[in-house]
């Protein structure tokens, strides 16, 4: 929970960029933050959003570490070159983004990296916002190593056929039968992707396949309500969603 640390409690954190071996053996940069000390701590893989491997996600990664997780956020845009997050993201967008297959392999590599560390318990969850929410869900369906998944307003989990592409050949909802981890979904009711109707569809699929999930839908919030650097930020809903996210991972990975 937010702001519940005792004032006489020791705290410390280590944060740095490390290199993991991603899809195809590619060297992929990843921002790693973990509580100081030997641990062991549960792990979380953070999946950045379309605007890239940016300052916001480094903060999110440190926040998860501050709440007791070994947290890692791989640079999904590694293969698009280096520059400011905005320049890299613009180039990635012009190239159609990251292929689902590549992204999932990179998350699996990040999970394996954490699991191999002495300070990690080996129980690792995955979370993401926007395209990262979709990616996180996809990873929890296509791999079986994650202990919990949090999808924050992931658009394009439900995809009509005309939106499928070479890089996104299958709608994530079609993999629901393979979902291997309990899911927390957090959505804004004013969002257009996922729309409330698409969230309904997703929920129906989860029920149909008997999956463990919790969905929370916020009135007065749209897409990206965590992003305090954007007008979409909604303070009350964001703080509730952060607390739910941390509590969910603590319950399933602790």
């Amino acid at each position: 929970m937010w702001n519940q640390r005792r004032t006489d409690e020791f705290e410390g954190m280590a944060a740095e960029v490390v290199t993991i071996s991603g899809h195809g053996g590619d060297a992929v940069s990843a921002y790693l933050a973990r509580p100081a000390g030997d641990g062991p701590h549960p792990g979380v893989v953070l999946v950045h959003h379309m605007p890239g491997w940016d300052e916001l996600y480094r903060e999110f990664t440190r926040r998860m570490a501050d709440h007791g997780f070994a947290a890692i956020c791989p640079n999904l845009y590694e293969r698009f070159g280096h520059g400011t997050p905005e320049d890299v993201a613009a180039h990635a967008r012009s190239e159609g983004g990251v292929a689902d297959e590549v992204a999932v392999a990179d998350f699996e590599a990040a999970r394996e990296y954490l699991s191999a560390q002495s300070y990690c318990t080996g129980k690792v969850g995955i979370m993401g916002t926007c395209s990262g929410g979709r990616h996180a869900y996809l990873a929890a369906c296509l791999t079986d190593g994650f202990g919990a998944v949090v999808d924050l307003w992931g658009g394009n989990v439900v995809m009509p056929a005309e939106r499928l592409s070479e890089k996104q050949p299958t709608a994530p909802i079609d993999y629901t039968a393979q979902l291997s981890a309990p899911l927390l979904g957090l959505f804004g009711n004013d969002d257009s992707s996922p729309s409330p109707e698409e969230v309904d569809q997703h929920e129906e699929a989860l029920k149909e396949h008997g999956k463990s999930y919790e969905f929370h839908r916020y009135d007065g919030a749209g897409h990206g309500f965590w992003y305090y650097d954007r007008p979409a930020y909604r303070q009350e809903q964001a703080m509730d969603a952060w607390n739910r996210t941390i509590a969910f991972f603590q319950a399933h990975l602790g």
Partner: protein
Amino acid sequence: MCTMIVEKAKVAGSARGAKGWFKLDQVNVSYDHPSNAQFDHAVNLDFVNGAAGLDARVAVELSPESARSLMRAIDAALNRGVAEAGLESGE
């Protein structure tokens, strides 16, 4: 949502970026989340030179209404160029 809607135009010309003028070879036009403009979605114009590095980019983020207004202004200027300054129509 992250729409990933992108259209590309090959262009010739120049743009002035953070490090001065550079030659352009492409404009990427997307309808997606902007980085700075205060909209959920915007028409994002990235004037780039792929060979000159990722920072060879001039970014413009417009509301859809503004983008349409810009299109009309470009069209009007070209039409006047044809009518008043000997520009070939290019049609």
